[in-house]
């Protein structure tokens, strides 16, 4: 990837954690999950958002890889290009 392309990729900071373990804590291009309404994606520049998550597979795209984390539920908080997922205990 050239320097110009690198600069063009906009990222947000993503953290996925349970009370006892952090599963992911890095910049990413997007994070996708499922809430009561259905599947959704969060990218850089997303509006402030708080949602309860349904049991699903979270998909985090970093550009170089795609991380999948199976969850039983939780809460996602998105603000100022930061998405924090608090997994259920």
């Amino acid at each position, binding site marked *: 990837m050239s320097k110009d392309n690198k600069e063009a990729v906009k990222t947000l900071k993503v953290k996925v954690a349970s*009370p*006892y373990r952090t599963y992911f804590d890095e910049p990413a291009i997007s994070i996708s999950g499922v809430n009561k309404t259905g599947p959704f994606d969060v990218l850089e520049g997303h509006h402030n958002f*708080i*949602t309860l998550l349904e049991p699903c597979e979270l998909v985090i795209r970093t550009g170089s890889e795609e991380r999948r984390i199976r969850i039983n539920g939780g*809460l996602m908080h998105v603000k100022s290009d930061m998405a924090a997922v*608090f997994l259920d205990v």
Partner: protein
Amino acid sequence: MKQLTEVVEEQDAMQSVVGLTNVFQGLASMRISQIKDQVLSSQRFFNELWAIYSQIRVSKRFGYGRDHNDQVNDKELIIAITAEGGFSGDIDQKLINWMLKSYNTEKHDLVIIGHHGALQLTQASVPFKRYFKLPQHDNNINVLPLVNLVKQYKSTTVFYQTYVTLMVQDIKKIELKGAIEEASKKARDNNMIISEENYIFEPSTESVVSHMENTMMEITLTQTILDSKLAQYASRFRSMRSANDKASEMMQDLKWDYNRTRRYISDERLKEVVNSIDKVELNA
């Protein structure tokens, strides 16, 4: 005097005790360090969650994650956390005695965690509403059945063992709401207000708040269970340490016994040789 083979056998047996107590001591110490890490990690999680909760709370009062339709019992719920089995010394007895001082059948419902405490209550003919086994594992403790009970009562008090230091364990009681407020003091203050004007809520503000309250209650209850387990591991560590010290002292005594027995045998042989020489000389 003991035979040399007997002393050697005893030494072997004692060496096994020293080895075993060393292993148990190591295991207890490892568990203590793992639980401490878990408690710190869950406290960080709680703080981050509280920081958001404090900004969106619609009411100043902690709602226990209750729905509007939930019926609340006028009684107070008491939860006592004890050990599952032996090796816990007299601390469970102290905890049960202390809890019973404030227990009143008319005003309280009692939930007991741990077989040791349930046994003591049964022996004392004290009825309890529910009994739960103390979880064997230290990860992913399911406190949901407890949270569901807590929601049904106007208030909840938890009696549990607490870890002070490796050598000192104590008993403690907390009012659950107070414990959550206490834990929230460690979270940083944030004056920003989160509302439907500046945020999108899915499915609704109320469900999000209720979910957060449930999660924070689960964390707080899990922490009291972990604190109890920490105290129990520390108590086990202390017992193993004193058993190890005792076994090491006995090993030293056996070493003396071994040397004394060997010297005795050697002296006896020497005496026999000298006597034989005397006899030979007399006969000559």
